[in-house]
């Protein structure tokens, strides 16, 4: 699953630590999300989408394959 977290974070001028604090996770979780090596829970995906004022589908891009 791809995501736009890095791009959206830059657009909102947020550091990884700031985003992590807003959604209540460790900074390394944001690092692994951005690297694409971790798929978040629905709850975390929802929290991240809320921070950026978008829907989950706009932040996380599901690969059909």
């Amino acid at each position, binding site marked *: 699953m791809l995501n736009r977290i890095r791009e959206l974070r830059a657009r909102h001028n947020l550091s990884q*630590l700031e985003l992590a604090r807003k959604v209540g996770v460790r900074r390394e979780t944001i690092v692994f999300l951005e690297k694409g090596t971790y798929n978040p829970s629905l709850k975390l995906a929802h929290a991240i989408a809320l921070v950026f004022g978008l829907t989950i589908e706009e932040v996380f891009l599901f690969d059909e394959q």
Partner: protein
Amino acid sequence: MRKDFLIWMVAGLVLITVGIWLINSGTSGEAGFFLLPVVVLIVVGFAVFVGIRRYRSYRINEPQEDEYSIRLMTRATSVAFYLSLYWWLVVMYFSDQLQLEAHSIIGGGILGMALLFVSSWLYFRIKGIDHA
């Protein structure tokens, strides 16, 4: 902080217990004598590493555990458990072949399990939980 205290306490107890055992067991002539402290150091080193990470998180006011770290730990534990079943079979096979004593068999089994856990934790951390 209570969990941090437990991690440090267990790491300390393992070191002290192994130290006492090495001094009193009279196994200094055995082949595995020098290997054992190395393996124990790896295991205790891992506990210290986890403890430092948690303390650092505590200091910068971020959660010491979150869904990623819990999932990583769960995945590493389950894989380590599965592999350790085979590890015990290997230990049993060699205990028959090499006529090992009971303490060597149990010690080898426990240390192997600990090493398998550390290895699987590192593997999933590097490779990623969802893509390994």
